[in-house]
């Protein structure tokens, strides 16, 4: 049977049967009779359940049995919307609070606006419409609530829905060739992805971190995954004790991180070089680093420290005792600035956790010596800086000494790095270089201060000599003029 004959059949026999059921929707009646997929799917659609007809989106006359009348373009029939017209049709209701209220919905009404401002709202390569329309993620017919497990945006389905585009290299290349397309693969290896695959809808999936309608590029400062916003995004779940209760993991990571040297640098000083959660845990493949990989993770930034540590005797000792490398001394989320206090065996120092005074390895003594050298360098740097500042305040030119102070500071930074070699000789070499530089700076600055005194004393003597000369000259002029005056009178 060809199409006009089928339509004729439907109108003659099936339509009167359908009209007997309320509410009457002639579009659906005919299309059901045709057995097409959209009408089949639409019967499970949340919109169908709320009495919304095909004509509400496609236009036309829902009551007319005549094809020409029902699908008359002059009477408002739209057909299948294309491009931005798709989202515009959805927004006809979804952007109207009053219309949404009529259907008893409390859904937010700004989705299209958010979509338009999002990275998906940019123009597609066609140049005629947005990259993403509502139907791209929610489907066109058979739309169900995101809470419905059959929805493509239900938490368990969202990763697959996003991956339809984001895992397609040929498609993604058109918009952002630099963007990886392996997020879904990484995600499936992450703690979040594994639990999601096992059917846990509470674990984070794409929209939990990136948002849904308002997704922005990770480079956009307004993005929820922009470096400075990311800790708060992770904390949204990980700091919620009630939400995280069943996972039995701590919920104080954010608080600790915010106090840490990394947290302060990133969130307060807005230093984008400082790590956020994802820099250590991974983002799409987020998982806690294992004991054996901590130094590698920290070493991505602290490369020299990691290399020195890996070549040091501590590497083997830590491995044997299953101690996490950097974390054992520095902690994890609450990493405080590494000061001299960490070194040695005294109060606040970490070496004493393992090393004792009576041990044969000499580690305890080495730790004490390194602390002593470190303290000396800090003290000498402070003294030299104070002397330079004092000389500068007195207007003395100590630019060279000021420049050389950098060498002292550099040596101190180097010594902090060299600690990780746990090699007494190498540590002494670095600190002695700094101590020598500090001595030169102090001598130079002290010389300038001595010069300052010398100048004033010199000025006093010069003033005295000049004053004597001036007074003598004045007296001589008076004597001379008296003599001249006497001579002119006589």
């Amino acid at each position, binding site marked *: 049977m060809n199409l006009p004959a089928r339509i004729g059949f439907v109108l003659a026999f099936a339509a009167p049967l359908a009209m007997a059921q309320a509410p009457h929707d002639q579009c659906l009646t005919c299309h059901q009779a045709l057995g097409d997929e959209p009408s089949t799917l639409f019967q499970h659609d949340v919109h169908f359940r709320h009495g919304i007809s095909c004509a509400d989106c496609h236009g036309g006359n829902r009551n007319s049995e005549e094809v020409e009348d029902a699908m008359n373009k002059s009477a408002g029939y739209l057909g299948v919307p294309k491009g931005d017209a798709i989202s515009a049709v959805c927004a006809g209701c979804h952007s109207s609070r009053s219309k949404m209220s009529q259907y008893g919905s409390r859904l937010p009404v700004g989705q299209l606006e958010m979509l338009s401002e999002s990275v998906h709202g940019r123009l597609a390569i066609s140049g005629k419409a947005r990259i993403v329309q509502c139907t791209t993620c929610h489907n066109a017919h058979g739309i169900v609530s995101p809470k419905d497990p059959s929805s493509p945006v239900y938490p368990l389905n969202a990763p697959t829905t996003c991956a339809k585009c984001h895992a397609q290299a040929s498609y993604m290349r058109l918009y952002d060739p630099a963007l990886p397309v392996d997020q879904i693969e990484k995600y499936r290896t992450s703690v979040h992805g594994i639990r999601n695959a096992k059917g846990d809808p509470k674990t984070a999936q794409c929209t939990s971190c990136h948002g849904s309608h308002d997704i922005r590029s990770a480079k956009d400062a307004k993005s929820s995954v922009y470096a400075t916003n990311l800790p708060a995004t992770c904390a949204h779940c990980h700091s919620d004790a009630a939400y995280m209760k069943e996972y039995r993991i701590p919920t104080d990571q954010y608080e600790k991180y915010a106090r840490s040297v990394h947290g302060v640098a990133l969130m307060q000083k807005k230093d984008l070089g400082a790590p956020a959660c994802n820099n250590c845990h991974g983002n799409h493949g987020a998982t806690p680093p294992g004991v054996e990989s901590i130094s590698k993770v920290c070493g991505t930034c602290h490369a020299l420290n990691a290399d020195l540590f890996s070549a040091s005797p501590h590497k083997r000792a830590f491995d044997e005792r299953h101690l996490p490398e950097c974390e054992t001394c520095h902690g994890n989320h609450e990493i405080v600035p590494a000061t001299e206090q960490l070194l040695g065996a005294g109060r606040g120092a970490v070496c004493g956790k393992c090393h004792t005074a009576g041990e044969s390895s000499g580690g305890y003594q080495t730790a004490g010596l390194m602390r002593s050298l470190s303290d000396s360098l800090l003290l000498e740097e402070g003294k030299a800086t104070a002397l330079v500042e004092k000389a500068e305040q007195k*207007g*003395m*030119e*100590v*630019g*060279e000494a000021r420049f050389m102070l950098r060498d002292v500071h550099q040596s101190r930074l180097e010594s902090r790095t060299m600690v990780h070699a746990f090699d007494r000789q190498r540590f002494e070499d670095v600190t002695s270089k700094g101590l020598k530089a500090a001595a030169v700076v102090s001598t130079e600055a002290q010389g*300038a201060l001595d010069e300052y005194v010398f*100048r*004033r004393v*010199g*000025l006093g003597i*010069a*003033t005295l000599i*000049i*004053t004597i*000369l*001036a007074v003598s*000259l*004045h007296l*001589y*002029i008076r004597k*001379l*003029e008296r003599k*001249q005056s006497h001579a002119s009178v006589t």
Partner: protein
Amino acid sequence: MNSLLRRAYNWLDERLQLESLVKFMGKKYVPVHRNSVWYYFGGVSLFLFLIQVITGILLLLYYKGSDQLAFESIQFIMSKVAFGWLIRSIHSWAANLFILAVLIHMFSVFFEKAYRKPREITWVTGMLMFFLALGFGFSGYLLPWNELAFFATKVGTDIAGVVPIVGKPLMKFLRGGTDVTGATLSRFFGFHVAVFPGIFTILLGTHLLLVQRQGISEPMGHENQPGSERKTMPFFPNFLLRDLLLWLIVLNVLAILAVFFPWDLGRKADPFASAPSGIKPEWYFLFMFQTLKYLPAKFVFVDGEVLGILGFGAAGLLWLLVPFWDARSARGESNRFLNYMGLFVVVYIIFFTVVGWIA
């Protein structure tokens, strides 16, 4: 001791005929009146110029005139060379005091109408030396190659570039290119230590020769007074000894300034850095700089800045040529208009300098 000095003098006299010079100087008299004090500023200017020459030569022993080394060489002079700090500070302070002394000397001559016939050439040579002194200041300011000097020179040469027709070529000539670079420093150094001193020496020689030849100008009407009321003082040794006394005081003031307010070196110029806020020229250019800031962007069809520069140029020319158009003074008559005009110029300069300084 006295006989030894006498013998030395005689030895020199036999060869240089000093006696005739002493006799010539002994016949020279300086008028004494209520404004005699202003006569000393010529001598003070000369003394400060000599200090500039001596300290400048000493600085030349260590200074390196390239953008890579200039700042470091002055840093070296200030911190490593024995008394280098003193020489550099005195050079900088004396430069400013020199311009101040020259300004006072110029205005005293102006108000006394000492430029009147037959001293027109003395005035013109003096004025030209004043312009050269400003040139010394402008070129010397860049030599440390520090941040302030770099940007002030940029602004200064930009202003020169605004002059119609000759402005752009002049700016390019001053800068040695389109921008302030090491080439600018090299030529400013050349102007400062070779070109300007050469011209200045000729002008100074002429100026001093004329002063000696024509004698010191008397105030208007002074020469008409009866001989008994016309007080004078021998130039040698009375006036010269008083000059020496003042020079000693000036020397001490310079030493005090150098020790208590050593001339700051600042930070090395970075052509790629943005200009620091509050860039100002040296104080003696401030009144012109401040005036240009207050001028409207457009004045009828002419740029306000162009008009300002042309205005200052015209005023400078008028000032330079005052002996040739002030006919009343030339006839020995008082010229109140010029007195009020001079007073206005003094007040204007002081007012805008202070405003510029505060701003």
